[in-house]
């Protein structure tokens, strides 16, 4: 499979979803519902694993064989490592996973265009990367690292295979950890209305983020006027503002796309009482690049922090060493996506941003600048937002030439007199960005307000204290918050029909490039 950002042209899609796939998706959900009724833990786990394998088999039986082989290999390596957790055994285990990942993910692009001969057998040209391999390989690796660290993990083979193949996460994460998943696999919980409510809300939120917001940014308000056209149809001629807006636009598109996907996955699992790792937490509010990486693709970012950055940075005492490790760790982050010069450069760029931020902090400590805290925070946020947005140019560009041309343009003052994109694009991106911040603020306000007055309502109910005068503003707030909480806690009543309809729509449209509504496939399913 060629690696690149899906454009909606069908070149990078894993597989066209057929009606057969839809039927098997329904069977998967049905099997999952049946599993929850079983009283035997092993029986439940077996049905869940069967459902997960059935789901993954839609993308190819060959892919499923690789997943099963990887699961068996990592389980066996875990047993060996647990008997004697030595660094040598850990390195051999890591090498086995890197070889498999490299063979399927990094070798095919290297062989592209090379003629078949005796040294290069034809079958090597037919290697196809199993969907989600980067995600579940990293899950396998985290198990091995945890075992090396002598975590108390004793999964059965069934549990470990389920952890690797768990159907909501098998395609594109979040990258889960066994210490979080194992106790949940071992819990015989029943359906819970609170979980259904949260799950339905997040599922719907994800569907809207993906199918509406990400889609509008990708396609634009008129044909050929979105982010996709700005990157794919133009070869040169961007102005400085074009590059900035394309960076910001793609950042938001990726957030709505992958963040939406993560909401859907976390929501689907939550419907059945499973709580997965979070992947995003208001990344565009980050005041520094360091904070950004605790809020963006968190499951992978924390993976790299825990298993790469901390051990490597603490291995030497030189002052400069952690800065080198920042760049190395972020380069790994880039290469994890694909072994392309643009992704490597994206990783190095973010590594350098982290280093620049730390050095800036050191300078500030020695020569403190005295300005109001709010001004400092605003400047810090604006510079983080702009540099992170410019970084998306490397992530999204087709090749190094395009990336460097666009990046240079952003720093040429004269280029800001040139405008090459559709007029609607200059309106769309700011509206979407500002709209996002307004909606996030409203959401925060509503949550704070409902928590504050809802608590007061519950408190007065529990103690039998009469509410404050219902005519007062506080009394109105308490009653309104109680009603708000009542309906939001029972959201699934009215959300489920919408979720069902939209889920069927999205299932039909996402992987079906020839459908009447061209929907860009999930970006992260190609990594």
């Amino acid at each position, binding site marked *: 499979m060629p690696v690149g950002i899906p454009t909606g042209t069908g070149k990078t899609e894993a597989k066209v979803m057929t009606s057969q796939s839809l039927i098997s998706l329904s069977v998967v959900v049905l099997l999952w519902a049946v599993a929850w009724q079983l009283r035997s833990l092993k029986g439940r786990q077996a049905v869940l694993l069967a459902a997960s394998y059935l789901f993954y088999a839609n993308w190819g039986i060959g892919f499923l064989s690789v997943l099963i082989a990887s699961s068996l290999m990592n389980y066996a390596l875990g047993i060996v490592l647990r008997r004697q957790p030595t660094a040598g055994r850990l390195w051999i285990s890591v090498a086995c996973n890197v070889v498999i990942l490299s063979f399927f993910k990094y070798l095919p692009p290297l062989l592209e265009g090379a003629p078949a001969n005796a040294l290069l057998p034809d079958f090597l040209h037919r290697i196809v990367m199993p969907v989600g391999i980067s995600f579940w390989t990293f899950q396998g690796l985290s198990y091995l690292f945890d075992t*090396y660290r002598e975590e108390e993990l004793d999964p059965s083979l069934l549990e470990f295979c389920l952890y690797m193949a768990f159907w909501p996460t098998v395609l594109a994460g979040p990258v889960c950890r066994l210490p979080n998943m194992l106790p949940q696999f071992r819990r015989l919980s029943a359906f819970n209305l609170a979980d259904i409510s949260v799950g339905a809300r997040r599922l719907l939120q994800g569907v809207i983020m993906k199918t509406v917001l990400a889609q509008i940014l990708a396609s634009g308000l008129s044909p050929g006027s979105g982010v996709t056209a700005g990157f794919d149809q133009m070869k040169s001629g961007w102005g400085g503002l074009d590059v900035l807006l394309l960076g910001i636009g793609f950042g938001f598109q990726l957030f709505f796309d992958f963040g939406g996907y993560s909401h859907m996955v976390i929501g689907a699992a939550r419907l059945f009482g499973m709580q997965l790792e979070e992947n995003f937490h208001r990344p565009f509010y980050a005041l520094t690049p360091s904070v950004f990486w605790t809020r963006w693709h968190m499951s992978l970012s924390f993976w790299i922090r825990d298993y790469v950055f901390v051990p490597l940075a*603490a291995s030497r005492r030189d002052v400069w060493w952690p800065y080198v490790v920042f760049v190395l760790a972020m380069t790994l982050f880039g290469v994890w996506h694909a072994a392309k010069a643009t992704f490597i450069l994206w990783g190095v760029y973010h590594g350098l941003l982290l280093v620049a931020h730390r050095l800036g902090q050191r300078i500030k400590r020695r020569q403190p600048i005295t300005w109001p805290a709010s001004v400092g925070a605003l400047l810090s946020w604006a510079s983080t937002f702009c540099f992170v947005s410019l970084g998306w140019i490397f992530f999204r560009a087709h090749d190094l030439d395009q990336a460097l041309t666009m990046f240079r343009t952003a720093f040429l003052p004269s280029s800001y007199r040139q405008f090459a994109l559709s007029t609607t694009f200059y309106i769309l991106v700011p509206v979407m960005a500002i709209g996002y911040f307004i909606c996030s603020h409203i959401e925060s306000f509503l949550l704070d307000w409902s928590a504050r007055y809802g608590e007061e309502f519950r408190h007065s109910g529990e103690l039998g204290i009469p509410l404050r005068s219902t005519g007062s503003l506080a009394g109105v707030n308490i009653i309104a918050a109680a009603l708000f909480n009542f309906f939001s806690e029972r959201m699934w009543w009215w959300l489920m029909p919408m979720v069902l309809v939209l889920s069927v729509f999205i299932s039909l449209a996402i992987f079906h490039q020839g459908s009447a509504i061209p929907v860009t496939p999930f970006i992260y399913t190609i990594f």
Partner: protein
Amino acid sequence: MNEQAQQIIGYILKEVVRRPGVEIHEDTPLVSSGLIDSLELVNILVKLEDVTHMRIPAAKVQPKDMDTVNLMFATAQRLGRPRK
């Protein structure tokens, strides 16, 4: 609170947090609360080695093992080897 714990808390307050009004005791969550980040975690790990006079294999340490001062010392005791 023993002297070693006081040294680590003093170091965190003076070199890491550097904000007036912040109080830290042995069970204050540091990593999970976002009070310290990855680089500061590494610096504290190095300081912990100096304070305890031990060599702590970083590859065996998880951020959750360093979440509180008490956990840091438990980790040092579990994984640390006397320095040569």
